[in-house]
């Protein structure tokens, strides 16, 4: 089985910092980062008013569907997409082939500025995810769940 993604405190702080800065620099309303399987990794900006779990799942579904379409026409994927609404717009871009950076913004900013800031943030995020992958693959890295016992798992379902 695929070992999955493990997020450590240090990398999480850096990622959150980049998302916070991107929110400010792009004058965006919300920035969030989702893995391609629909798990929310980080959120910044006015995310407390949003159902970020649903947003993450639908983002992943959307990116997966567009990826499927891309392959049908001979592209490997569409690295970014933009959806313009009457009031709010969404920009999504794939970072490091693994995660999706989503920016929600309104008329206070422009698509051009969002794109510019996203490019810079993407490069920084891609480096952190490479670092995470190396850390996870390093020999001797303990399995974070190894200490869990069968009883712990049973207890979860005993209620």
């Amino acid at each position, binding site marked *: 089985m695929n070992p999955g993604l493990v997020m450590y405190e240090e990398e999480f*702080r850096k990622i959150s910092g980049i998302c916070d800065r991107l929110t400010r620099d792009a004058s965006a309303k919300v920035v969030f980062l989702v893995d391609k399987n629909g798990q929310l990794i980080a959120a910044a900006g006015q995310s407390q008013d949003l159902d970020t779990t649903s947003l993450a799942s639908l983002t992943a579904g959307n990116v997966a569907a567009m990826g499927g379409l891309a392959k049908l026409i001979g592209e490997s994927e569409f690295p970014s997409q933009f959806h313009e609404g009457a009031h709010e717009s969404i920009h999504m871009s794939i970072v490091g082939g693994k995660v999706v950076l989503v920016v929600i913004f309104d008329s206070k900013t422009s698509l051009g500025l969002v794109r510019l800031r996203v490019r810079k943030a993407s490069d920084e995020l891609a480096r952190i995810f490479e670092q995470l992958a190396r850390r996870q693959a390093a020999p001797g890295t303990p399995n974070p769940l190894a200490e869990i016992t069968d009883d712990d798992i049973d207890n*979860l379902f005993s209620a």
Partner: protein
Amino acid sequence: MSFINYSSREINCKIVYYGPGLCGKTTNLQYVYARTSPEAKGKMISLATETERTLFFDFLPLSLGEIRGFKTRFHLYTVPGQVFYDASRKLILKGVDGVVFVADSQIERMEANLESVENLRINLSEQGYDLNRIPYVVQYNKRDLPNVATVDELHRLLNPRKVPEFQAVAPTGVGVFDTLKQVAKLVLTELKRGG
């Protein structure tokens, strides 16, 4: 693909309900949604056609409690069962940690069940997973209908791996939580093993 976050102390896993069209995958999720306390669940999303057939997926985020200070969260997905939505099914299996196969117990749906298991095997292998190894449970649904195959027969045809299996009547909830608990348990056991 599980996501373990040390910062927020969370374990997130993905479970996919698979099976032929109209076998009751969405009904399983709807029952879980209806019977789970508001603080343990998120919004259920159904991307469906106007006639309420699943078009892309249903999604239900669920919290199961804590293990050693880690919140365990499960994301439940269904696939569209109809044969021609195969491209969508492949996408939804990406990053899956555990699979529930929902079989329609009616004799006339046996061929559709077999076809769907085979489709699951192929689509999993395209993602690099092996149906013989992935955390997997089988549910024989619609046990309340008159024209159902025997459990022995269903077992023989649909469960050669002899994984945990459950009889169910999804609209009334029979077997629904037993199925979910078992697959969640298998997923966590696999993660503990370092799978």
